[in-house]
């Protein structure tokens, strides 16, 4: 490797690269800064100052009020997201295991059809899904919403696990079968312990998708069972009284924090998982 000393620290091309990167960083960060600043301002401060001005007095009043309004829906979101993520990841792992290592007649076709699910826009499944939920007696329940998320997410989770498992040599399964292990023993003792990177990818992906979902939430839930994204929308769109931008911004931050947290904690696995298979362990 060349040491940085070999090259002039500030060549014109390098300056240009840094300038472009800086602009990109500003573009991405300004909205966040505006949100954070506004959420800590008083309503008077907001109406007198401009968007980027520093708060005259930092106050958590917006956060307190926002939490008071959306906390119930925050828990709703957790009650929807956690089971939906866990169930869709578990079934996706089993699907991927079968489709890559226990192929059956027509399994390729099955996988191909399943892949279609990845290309289906949310809107196209709204009517059939609500029909099905109605028939099952699950309309406007948290269970129903979890079911919709699980079914919709299966296409993605299956794809993730199947593609990961395809790179694992068949001989491992054969060896385990000769050792006397059955379908589930092989999965639990041999395949799952190797799957950490792809499990992380799947968890992050599904968590982000389901937590951030608005459309399914607004259609398949009502009143007290709504997720936080819907509650946030309702809060921001109220036309009665004065606009409380500090509360809106704080509520939006609260809604966005869990996904941010998941990325910070498990983000390194995400990159690692997406490149897994390129290097065999």
């Amino acid at each position, binding site marked *: 490797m060349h040491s940085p000393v070999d090259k002039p620290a500030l060549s014109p091309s390098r300056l240009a690269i840094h300038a472009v990167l800086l602009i990109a960083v500003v573009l991405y960060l300004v909205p966040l800064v505006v949100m954070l600043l506004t959420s800590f301002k008083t309503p008077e401060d907001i109406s007198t100052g401009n968007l980027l001005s520093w708060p005259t007095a930092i106050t958590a009043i917006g956060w307190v009020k926002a939490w008071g309004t959306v906390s119930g829906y925050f828990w709703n979101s957790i009650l929807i997201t956690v089971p939906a993520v866990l169930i869709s990841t578990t079934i996706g792992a089993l699907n991927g295991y079968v489709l890559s290592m226990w192929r059956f007649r027509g399994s390729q076709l099955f996988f191909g059809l399943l892949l279609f699910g990845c290309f289906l826009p949310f809107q196209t499944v709204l009517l059939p899904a609500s029909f099905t939920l109605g028939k099952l007696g699950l309309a406007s329940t948290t269970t129903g919403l979890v079911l919709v998320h699980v079914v919709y997410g299966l296409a993605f989770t299956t794809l993730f696990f199947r593609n990961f498992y395809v790179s694992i*040599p068949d*001989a*491992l399964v*054969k*060896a*385990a*079968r*000769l*050792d*006397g*292990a059955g379908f589930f*023993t092989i999965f639990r*003792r*041999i395949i799952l*312990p*190797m799957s950490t990177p792809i499990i992380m990818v799947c968890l992050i992906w599904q968590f982000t998708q389901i937590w951030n979902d608005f459309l399914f939430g607004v259609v398949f839930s009502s009143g007290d069972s709504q997720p936080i994204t819907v509650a946030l929308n309702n809060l921001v769109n109220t036309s009665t009284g004065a606009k409380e931008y500090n509360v809106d911004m704080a509520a939006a931050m609260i809604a966005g924090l869990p996904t941010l947290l998941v990325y910070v904690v498990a983000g390194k696995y995400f990159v690692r998982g997406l490149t897994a298979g390129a290097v065999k*362990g």
Partner: protein
Amino acid sequence: MATLELRNVNKTYGAGLPDTLKDIQLSIKDGEFLILVGPSGCGKSTLMNCIAGLEQITGGAILIDQQDVSGMSPKDRDIAMVFQSYALYPTMTVRENIEFGLKIRKMPQAAIDEEVARVAKLLQIEHLLARKPAQLSGGQQQRVAMGRALARRPKIYLFDEPLSNLDAKLRVEMRTEMKLMHQRLKTTTVYVTHDQIEAMTLGDKVAVMKDGIIQQFGTPQQIYNDPANQFVASFIGSPPMNFVPARLVAQGGQLHAVLDSGQARCELPLPGADLGLEGREIVLGIRPEQIALGAEGGNGGPSIRAQVQVTEPTGPDMLVFVTLNQTKVCCRLAPDVACQVGDTLALQFDPARVLLFDAQSGERLQATRIANTVKDNMAALGGR
């Protein structure tokens, strides 16, 4: 400890597709070492998977100890297998890898510990037991893979090209070790390889396969001395057998093959060949080591003068290439033979050991005669 018998085993991956295995028929005795050898795609690995039960056969029967196991699942056949890629469980330590099969079979922990200790000692991997497979070298991984197979004390071992991922030096070492191991344990073994030296050195019996068909099944000596056809003859032996196209002429009540080196002609007498073959285009099969230097008109055998085209000193041998009937012919001579490119040598053949193949089909044309000759030779060797 078991016998293994394959009766008319067939395997096809669907109607209309060509058969992967066709009427495979062979049997080995308790404790024998069977080699399945052939070029890639010949079906040898498929056959091994069928014996293991990892793939279902579509016809015939597989018998272990006279018991039909064709319908049994792999775990009930009591077979252990070593894979080409070793297939060690990457998240388990060496100890856990060896234990896995025993734990699944619910062996008590004390017995498992004893068994792991025995196998580790046998393979000298005691110091590696706590490591993960990724922390081992190729040779060590290979030992662990063998250890996993040995620990179960199965009826039959299957080895699927176990040495092909090792470097050349280690491969030769492990080959000897493998033979030593088999001599000590005397467990019935089936070993797949595409390496003809492994086939010759390790096997009690060798089955040479091509296109899903067993071309020949016999001892290494039978395969080497008495190949059933040109394919077997070309596959076994290094450097490979020379195949010289020739015409047969009758002379004095005996068939002769006409050889032409460009400088001289020679009529090689073929004592046992059927006179009905006169005028036929045939292929002579001559092993490089069966060509000797001889003075013209010297001690008995017919000889021919030929010009040296290329020399390859290998150390133990001097390989000399000449042209006979427009075909390059390799001669394996003593390393101290002083010859230069362009020199003319007198080469001598043993007519009794020259093989005849049909030019079209590649089938042997005088199978029995050679078999007898070899038997005579063996008897002579034994009597010495």
